[in-house]
């Protein structure tokens, strides 16, 4: 970083422009925040701002795992179901009297198994990731439904409760966890060999394979990471509700994908933007919070997430002038 010394001292304006270019969501986020702060008095309270940070922290963990996957030029739609199944497993084991820590480990293990399954189907059987994970989305939700028998699994466990309601030095636990995970992902993505491998597979898989990278192993590892992130998501959500159920988490995969895409990670692969994903999570959560405060019906939230996703992609693509035939998921 410091080896290249620029010839002339850069102005503050050019430095600001550089920061904005690396995180294009800063301005829309500021606009939404300022707009809501002026229009809705309830938005400005400290409690509400903590609510937003709290919700964004829960969303950002699966978003970061999804960032790695999209950097690889692939998708995982099954994460919404992984959340459901792992939450159901954790709650059922706790209800049946197993130690809480063991139940959480089992949930993580189930998440990892879903990830390995996805990875093997995609790499060894040569199935397009988008459709393969669409199928596992349905299969895993079916398993969750069969496992819970369609019932809500109600629990009251202080250890589980800590994951959503606990505080570390006065800060809610999910926020602390999210900060740690963001730091880890920044390090892994930009400073380790694995991060560079993922980007290499995303920019040109054939070239990566020919230069000797263990491409299949890298891809499976990323799907396992997503499975684990889905398990963490499931644990936090069932901790929040103190409940496991097969109907939780429907459509959550859209949120995880949307925050990555609006954050500026390219769908074509090869370029990750961790900070973009964090800002994306903040933007979506702020918009949903604002819609809630304005008493807009919940159906509008789905619509707004869908439109944000499509709109962000349209802006990306128009700027880059991609031809229509280059848009297919055909690799």
């Amino acid at each position, binding site marked *: 970083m410091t080896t290249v010394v620029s010839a002339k001292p850069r102005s503050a304006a050019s430095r600001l422009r550089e920061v904005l270019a690396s995180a294009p969501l800063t301005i829309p986020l500021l606009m939404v925040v300022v707009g809501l702060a002026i229009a809705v008095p309830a938005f400005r309270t400290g409690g509400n701002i903590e609510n937003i940070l709290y919700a964004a922290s829960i969303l950002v963990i699966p978003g970061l795992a999804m960032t790695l996957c999209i950097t690889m030029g692939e*998708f995982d*739609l099954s994460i919404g179901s992984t959340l459901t199944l792992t939450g159901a497993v954790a709650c059922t084991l706790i209800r049946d009297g197993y130690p809480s820590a063991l139940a959480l480990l089992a949930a993580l293990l189930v998440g990892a198994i879903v990830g390995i399954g996805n990875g093997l*189907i995609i790499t060894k*059987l*040569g*199935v*397009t990731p*988008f*459709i*393969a994970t*669409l*199928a*596992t*989305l*349905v*299969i895993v*939700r*079916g*398993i969750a*439904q*069969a496992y819970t028998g*369609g019932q809500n699994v109600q629990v009251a466990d202080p250890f589980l409760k800590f994951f959503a309601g606990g505080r570390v030095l006065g800060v809610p636990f999910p926020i602390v966890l999210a900060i740690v995970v963001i730091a880890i992902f920044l390090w892994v993505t930009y400073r380790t060999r694995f991060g560079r491998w993922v980007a290499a597979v995303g920019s040109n898989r*054939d070239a990566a394979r020919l230069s000797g990278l263990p491409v299949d192993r890298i891809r499976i590892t990323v799907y396992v990471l997503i499975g684990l992130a889905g398990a963490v998501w499931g644990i936090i959500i069932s901790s929040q509700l103190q409940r496991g159920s*097969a109907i939780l988490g429907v*459509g959550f995969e*859209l949120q995880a*994908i*949307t925050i990555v*895409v609006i954050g500026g990670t390219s*769908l074509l692969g090869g370029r990750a933007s961790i900070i973009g994903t964090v800002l994306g999570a903040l933007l979506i959560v702020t918009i949903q919070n604002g819609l809630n405060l304005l008493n807009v*019906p919940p*159906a*509008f*939230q*789905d*619509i707004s*997430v*869908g*439109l944000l*996703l*499509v709109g962000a*992609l*349209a802006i990306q*693509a*128009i700027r880059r*002038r*991609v*031809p*229509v*035939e280059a*848009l*297919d*998921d*055909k*690799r």
Partner: protein
Amino acid sequence: MTSADVQKRTPLTALAERARGFHLGTFWDRWGITAVLAILVIAAIVIQPGVDRGAFLNILNITSILKEASYLGIVACAMTFAVINGTFDLSVGGQLALTSIVSLLAFGIGGSGLAIAAAIFTGIACGLVNSLLVTAMRVPPFVATLGMLFVFRGIGTLLTADGPAKLPYADFGSVFGQIGKISFGGIPLVFVIMVAFFLVGFVILRRTGLGRQVIAFGSSPAAAKFSGISAVKIRFFVFVFLGLSVGIAALTYVTRIGTADGAAQDGFELRVITAAVLGGASLQGGKGSLVGTFSAVMLVTVLNDLFRDLQVDSAWQRIILGCVLVVALAIDGLRTKFPGFSVFRRVTALRDQRVARAG
């Protein structure tokens, strides 16, 4: 553009294979899914599940299977076009829910004529939105349609905020209500509509320049572009055609069920794509058959009927459907990954090697 494109079978080698006699791969490509369907139907007749409900061959049961197949089949036919073209549409479930709701609401306002027109126009409008996103805004089709799935369902939920849209019981006798009810000697009208749609689809795909362009673009976008085929026009056609098919499918669906809300037909897109892929369409593009899709639609519907008769839990139905899709995709994926792989050929290659070494 992977090496798979280069290694695709040319007509010449296909001819050579036919000349060699029976070839399992070729047979599977052409008749596999029909054979599976035939075996399943024979098994169902022999086992006769759900004796208390009447046998499988009961005329009422057959009529209900044909009705159930129709709306799935109409959309699966158009989806086959999309898959052959190298793309797919995840928003068909949302389109079907929204179109059904709009046509029911329109029936309340202006009767049968308006309801039918509303269904067709809403379907085409949904297709137009998708195709504009893909062709004008350059959003990748799979993500565009994923986003629109939630948008369409959200709009449907907003429209039915005061409870699901319903066809009043007294109006089942109207022209609109009769679409899903009439049958000619056990063959329901909706099934006739589906067969007609497949015939039109077949003619477009195999007998017109437009169909050839769809196939050519799917098998090699670059080559198609250099031969002057407009990618924008082809994609526009594919998504609008899907929208039209959903409009017609919604007519055959909602006139039978009589009610719809934003969550109607959850997971429909998966069943449609499963039918197209089971029917032999390859997600790599350029390959697919409407006859195969037709058989696959009947197969999926008969399977569903058997599940109901055998009282299989809905959770297990999902798991099995998902696994069927994965297996169908894996067959396609493995063939793309290892083209020309066959145990027979490997054995002959080993023998040739030995002979060469000995000689």
